[in-house]
């Protein structure tokens, strides 16, 4: 049993004879952490740019920059949380320590929604990019069916346990970073046009205030994936140093690249008014599902075919890796929630044969496939935003609460820039970040009707499962109830 998880009456206790603690081989350094986190965060731009531009139009670059700043605050929060509490539960673990199991459940369940949507949106986008090589794949229902096939194959791979090469992952991510840098630099030299970017903005008209707010809330999905870092805390060498460095590197990389890529996209595909009066950009008319290919499409003729081929190939690879990352994240989170008695064992237990939470992988894969079936990337983006900002808000609140309740908790990395309130150091970035994500969550609820309905339904179902499961556990642990269990 874990040292931090005392046995309760009725628990079956397994005490290994000779093991005082399990000897973990921690292997990840800054490079491994960065590549894993970037593989998650860095894949978002392959679909996020299109959906953000659909709403934010000419304000897409500033919207991505604003959400980039919020991302920095969130990254700092996760850096402190992951180094202080290196558990697989992420914001759920922070909330469990800072508040109570209920708040922890809400944070974890919101995060679970995010992992499921990561699977859906990444698999769906991968097939759309594959449509570059075989056009029918870029249309519905082929892209939805293809996405479901990707998810099914990955579920099978993870259950069977075919070893993925972590070195290959690192190499692919590094190639992805270099490719994005190449495109960004080429775009800066050839495509980016400041007068066009300025003329793209028609204040209050294109975008409208509603669209602008919608765009800000959606733009948060461009930066999702930072949870990965906290999930890997237990296998990181020297987490107090590696995690903050990796987080900072990821932030710098995505902030600069997203700004440049969005400027390139809106320079190449200016905002204009359609005959029906609607303001659009060709980027979303033609490349909604594969926006980075849209940028490659405006490169000089001499390099366009090679670059487009390379971008499509790389996008497919990176997005499949991201789909797998979502699946692994959901699996680990399910295990973590089961360990905390937040999910029934049927969902979270580790299968004897496959040695993974097989039921969790299967059930969440089915849900992810169901979401893909609609073929609506905007629905997926809505749900993504709903879950992500809720989890981030919880993370910020937890870090602040821990500063108040446990000021002496060892924090290998402590967020700089604090204010002192009643003898407690409160991190300014966590306060600002928490406010920003909380307000964004309200914007998501207000502006995204489908996201609101599906998101709250997801929470409601989860809370019902949690409530019923906890009630059943309490009945089992009641002293009047004969369990017949032995230690």
């Amino acid at each position, binding site marked *: 049993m874990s040292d931090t998880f005392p046995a309760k009456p009725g628990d079956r206790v397994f005490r*290994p004879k000779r093991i005082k603690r399990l*000897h973990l081989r921690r292997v990840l350094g800054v490079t491994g952490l960065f590549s894993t986190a970037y593989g998650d965060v860095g894949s978002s731009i392959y679909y996020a740019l299109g959906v953000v531009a659909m709403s934010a139009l000419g304000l897409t670059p500033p919207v991505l920059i604003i959400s980039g700043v919020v991302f920095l605050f969130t990254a700092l929060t996760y850096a402190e949380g992951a180094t202080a509490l290196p558990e697989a539960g992420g914001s759920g673990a922070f909330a469990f320590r800072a508040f109570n199991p209920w708040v922890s459940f809400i944070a974890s369940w919101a995060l679970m929604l995010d992992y499921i949507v990561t699977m859906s949106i990444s698999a769906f986008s991968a097939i759309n990019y594959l449509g570059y090589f075989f056009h029918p794949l870029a249309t519905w229902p082929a892209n939805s069916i293809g996405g479901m096939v990707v998810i099914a194959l990955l579920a099978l791979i993870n259950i069977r346990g075919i070893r993925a090469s972590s070195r290959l992952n690192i190499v692919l991510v590094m190639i992805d970073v270099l490719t994005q840098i190449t495109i960004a630099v080429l775009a800066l030299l050839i495509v980016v046009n400041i007068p066009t970017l300025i003329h793209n903005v028609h204040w209050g008209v294109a975008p409208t205030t509603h669209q602008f707010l919608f765009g800000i809330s959606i733009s948060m999905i461009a930066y999702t994936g930072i949870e990965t870092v906290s999930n890997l805390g237990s296998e990181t060498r020297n987490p107090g140093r590696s995690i903050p460095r990796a987080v900072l590197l990821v932030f710098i990389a995505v902030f600069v690249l997203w700004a440049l890529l969005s400027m390139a996209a809106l320079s190449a595909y200016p905002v204009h008014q359609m005959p029906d009066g609607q303001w659009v950009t060709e980027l979303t008319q033609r490349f909604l599902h594969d926006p980075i290919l849209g940028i490659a499409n405006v490169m000089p003729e001499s390099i366009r075919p090679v670059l487009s081929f390379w971008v499509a190939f790389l996008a497919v690879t990176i997005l499949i890796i991201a789909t797998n990352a979502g699946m692994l994240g959901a699996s680990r989170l399910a295990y973590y929630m089961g360990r905390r008695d937040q999910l029934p064992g049927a969902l979270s237990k580790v299968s004897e044969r496959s040695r993974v939470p097989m039921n969790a992988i299967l059930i969440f894969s089915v849900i992810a496939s169901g979401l893909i079936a609609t073929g609506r990337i905007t629905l997926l983006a809505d749900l993504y935003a709903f879950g992500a900002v809720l989890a981030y808000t919880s993370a910020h609140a937890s870090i602040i609460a821990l500063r108040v309740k446990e000021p002496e908790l060892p924090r290998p990395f402590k967020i700089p820039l604090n204010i002192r309130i009643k003898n407690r150091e409160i991190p300014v970035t966590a306060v600002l970040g928490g406010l920003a994500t909380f307000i964004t969550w309200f914007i998501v609820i207000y502006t995204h009707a489908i996201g609101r309905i599906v998101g709250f339904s997801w929470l409601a179902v989860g809370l019902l499962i949690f409530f019923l499961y906890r009630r059943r556990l309490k009945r089992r642990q009641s002293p009047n109830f004969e369990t017949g269990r032995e230690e």
Partner: protein
Amino acid sequence: MEYSKILVPVVGTPVDESVMKLACRLARRDKEREKDKDKEKSKIWAVSVVAIKRALPLDAEIESEIRRAEDVLDRVQSVAEKEGFEIETDVLQARDVGPAIVDEAVERGVTLILMGIVYKRQFGQFSLGDVVPYVLKNSPCPVILYQQ
């Protein structure tokens, strides 16, 4: 050759007991030399590595795997006791077995890794699997393979 510190990775195959006996005899031979010189005492470590799939956190506790590792270490410990040797045992959790063994060897500064292998065929060819070649390639010290 001096084998004062021997690492014996065990996996639960019948060859583990023979490997532990061999380790004890090699260490005993080294022990004999200790009487003449002012030497470091011989030590044997037996480790069982539990490979954790990426779908679980590294600190996941899989009871069945830990129990199995315990049983394996129990058996080799009793073999060592019969040979008159006290060994140290450890259960490691890692993503990959090969790197975990090599890291353990480096960390403990062992002078020999002694591994048992069973005859396996893959696609009609004799196969050493993935772990043994990795250890042979990356080991910081001599490696002896014992096949039964």
